[in-house]
Each structure stands twice: as C-alpha cells, then as structure tokens.
C-alpha cells in the first residue's frame, strides 16, 4: 500500500535519512523503532511532504507522494498524527475534530464518523465544547488520533503516540490502535516505546542513524537479542 524506496533526506549538510526502504501492506501494523535522532519522525514528515526529500521515492498505491503537495495528501487517504499531537489548542475539541474533516463534503458521513470517534473516545464527547488546550496529555493524544480519523483515511501514520503519557494511558492508546487496525485501518507506527510497539505490530523496522539495520516480524524482533539489548533494556 505504502512503499518507500531508497529515501534520502538532508537538513543542510547533515544527512538525516541515508537511503531507507520500507513497505506497509494493507491491513498491517508496521512499526518503525529506534533511538532519538534515528530519523523516525523525519521519515514520516517526508512521507507527508512536511520535509523535502533529497532523493528516492514514496508511493501510496502507486501514486508518487514526493510530487504531491503536503495539503493534498490527506485526500488520498493517508492521515498523519504528528509527534507532539499538534492539536489546535484554542479551538474546541469538536472544532478540532471537524478540522480533520476539512477536505470532506459528505455531511452525513462526517456526522457518522464523528459519532464513531466519540464511541471510540467517550472522554472526547464529554469535553466536546472545551478548548483543546485544556485537555490532559492523554486526551490530547486521543483528540489527535480522532482528528486524523475524521478524514476517513485508509492508512494512518502515528508518530510517538505514547510520548509523555502514563503507563496506564499508553496501554489504553495502544489498545485503541489495535482496535482501529482490527476495523481495517492500516497503520505505520513510529515509537520509542519499542516493547509496546513490537507487541502489537505485524512487522517492524529498526532504524539507526538514518539507516534500517534490521527488519522482521514484531514477535520475532521482541525475542531478538540485539533488539532486546539495544531497545528493550533487557
């Protein structure tokens, strides 16, 4: 579904991504794990055009994303939940969710999706009139995911959904990611919390200073000695 080939990205003289290739098939959860600064976020940013690639290709169902303007990508069925949530804090919860449906015109379906988000995140419904900036970190993450769902995507890119959350909330968020996937959503997940990410992933790539150093099935990598030492603290 999503295919990245030999992607290279530079910030000035520094090459952050040194030629990575990865693939996400329909219905999968694929995670991209690695330490801080490995290039995980840059990879996602390049897929959605927030950062310009130096060379390589990114294709979504055969369509070249590198030649597509950033704001046109969401209408191709790909939604990106950025690191740090990036919710609109002065807008209300519901206004934020409606921003997610900005490109859509099918009012009835939008309402259906809104109630679907509220079913998935009842806490957002309770706070729908509240300014989004007043939500707790976990609620903001739910809002960011809910907002992305409002564009009715087929593939979701999630960047560090566990960042800054308590272990209990992390569990809850990952449970929801799993649930979304079971409902048919394809997911590319970037995480520092490697254990959590691997445990729900079909497949995973390990990124180290801009290169993919390992790939395999989620369970397989969980058992791998090298991965356990480097990322799971065992």
């Amino acid at each position, binding site marked *: 579904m999503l295919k990245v080939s030999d992607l290279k990205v530079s910030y000035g003289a520094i090459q952050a991504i040194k030629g990575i290739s990865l693939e996400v098939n329909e219905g999968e959860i694929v995670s991209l794990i690695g330490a801080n600064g490995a290039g995980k976020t840059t990879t996602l940013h390049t897929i*959605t*055009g*927030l950062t310009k690639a130096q060379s390589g290709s990114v294709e979504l169902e055969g369509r070249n994303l590198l030649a597509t*303007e*950033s*704001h*046109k990508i*969401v*209408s191709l069925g790909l*939604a*990106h939940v*950025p690191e740090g949530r*990036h*919710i*609109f*804090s*002065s*807008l209300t919860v519901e*206004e934020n969710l*409606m*921003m*997610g449906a*900005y*490109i859509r015109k099918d009012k009835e379906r939008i309402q259906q999706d809104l109630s679907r988000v509220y079913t998935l995140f009842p806490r957002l419904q309770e706070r729908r009139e509240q300014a989004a*900036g007043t*939500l*707790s*970190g976990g609620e*903001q993450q739910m809002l960011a995911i809910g*907002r*992305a769902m409002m*564009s009715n995507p087929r593939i979701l890119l999630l960047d560090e959904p566990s960042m*800054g959350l308590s272990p209990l909330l992390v569990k809850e968020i990952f449970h929801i990611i799993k649930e979304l996937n079971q409902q048919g959503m394809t997911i590319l997940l970037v995480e520092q919390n490697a254990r959590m990410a691997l445990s729900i992933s079909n497949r995973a790539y390990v990124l180290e200073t801009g290169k993919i150093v390992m790939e395999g099935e989620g369970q397989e990598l969980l058992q791998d000695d090298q991965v356990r030492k480097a990322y799971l603290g065992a």
Partner: protein
Amino acid sequence: MPQELIVFIKHLINGVQVGSIYALVALGYTMVYGIVKLINFAHGDFIMVGAYAALFSIPVLTGIGLPAWFCVFVAVAACALLGVVTEKVAYKPLRNSPRISALITAIAVSLLLQNLFMVCFTSSPRPFPEIFHVPDLRLGSIQINGVAVLTIVLSAVLMIALQLFVQKTKLGRAMRAVSEDSEAASLMGISVNRTISMTFAIGSGLAAVASVMYGSVYPLIDPYMGSMLGLKAFIAAVLGGIGIIPGAMLGGLVIGLVESLTKAYINTQLADAVVFGILILVLIIKPEGIFGKNIGEKV
C-alpha cells in the same frame, strides 16, 4: 445642552471616526502577524497605494458614468493584489529564515513603495476630491458630519463581517488553524500558501477602504501619508494584542479617541507624542496587549 458638552461629544465622534480608520488598518497588521508572525511594515504604504489608486480611478469611473465612490472597489482590488504579490515575491522566500530577515524586508518594501511613488507622482500632495455626498446627521442640538457617520458605520459593518467570516466560515476556520499551527493545518488538507495569500488580500483590502475614508477626512495624499498612519495603526494593534482581531478593533478606537481628545484639550502637537507614549506604556506594563494572554501550554 451646554455648549461644552456638545463640543466634547463632537470630539468623541471625531475620535471614533479616526479610530475606525486606525482599526481597519490595524486589522491588516494583526491578521498578517497572526498568520505568518511578521510585522508587515509595508502595510501603511499599502494605504498610500490605495489612496492613489482611488484618486486616479475617479476620472475614469465618472467618465463611464459610474459614481465617484466606486473608486473604493478599485482601491480594494489594487491593494489586495499588491498585498498578495508582495507576500509571494518578498516574504514567502523568507518564510523559513530568521524573523528579522522578513522584518527588514518589510521595511525595504515600505521604502521601495514610498520612493517609487515619489518618483512616479512627485512628492507634492494631491487633493483628494469629495466623493461621498452624505447629508449631516442631526441629533437635537448636535450636528454630526455625514462622512463621519459613514466611516463609523462602514468600519463597524466590515469588522462584524470579518469576525463572522473568521469564526463561522470554513475559510475562516482554515485561517485560524494556519495561524495556530501551519504544519498541522497542512496535514488537515488546508493549503497554507493559499490561506496566507487570502489573509494578505483581506488585510490589504481593509487598508484600501481605510485609505479612501482617510482621504475623505484629510483630503491631501502624498507618497509618505502611509507611514504615520501605519505606525499609529500598528500601535493600535499592539495595544489590543497583536494577532487578536477584536484587539485591533478596540486598539484602533482607543488610539483614535486619545488622539482626538489630546488635540482638543491638551495640545495639537502633543497628540502624536501621547500616542507613542501609549505604545511605550503598553510595552512596559502589558506587552501582550489588552486582549493578549500569556497562554500556558501543556507539553
């Protein structure tokens, strides 16, 4: 009614009239700042360009049988275009540069416009004709200038329309989203470039309306007329809280009133000093402006 009170009310109305013009201009500063975090120092000179565009279009308009006040539309179109082109040519290439680069560029655009107009049309002031023929309004023993009423009403209508546009329409929501977080807005499918262009067009269009109303109060226009007017409107925007639309409206009215009352009761020559004094006070006491908030963000 005692004579002093009547005079006082007249000064108040005068202040509100000038204040509405400042408010219209201040909106341009504040909207542009809200969306690209740039003080567009050329904004004052957009007013000047609007005034010239209006002036030169009047003979053409009356020549084809249209009323002279249609020059407002010409001025709005000219300024909106100028704003959009200035952003594309001068500011957009610097969007990821340090903010000071864009600021210096804005000052350069301002100087360029002033000098360009001086070379083309000389620096001698040109009279601006009376284009609005509105009867004076009589309220008991108070007579209010018709143009003043028109200016106040027109500004109020434009500001309400702007507020409705920003709060209630899809494009307005896009503007708010881009001003808050342009990357996230882009991920929602909002074209950031188009939204920024639209903001410049609206802000500059409002400046054009202000230019015609200003020309109707002080009927002399020259290539430098925009700098002082622009500065005062900028102070109005800062006073209200830069980036906040209702703040610009309130700030404009306050500056207009202060100026008018200073001229009337203290000293004409002190009016500018008092206005700039307000800027200094605001920066010392409440730099975020009347409506500005020091927003704490959750990390």
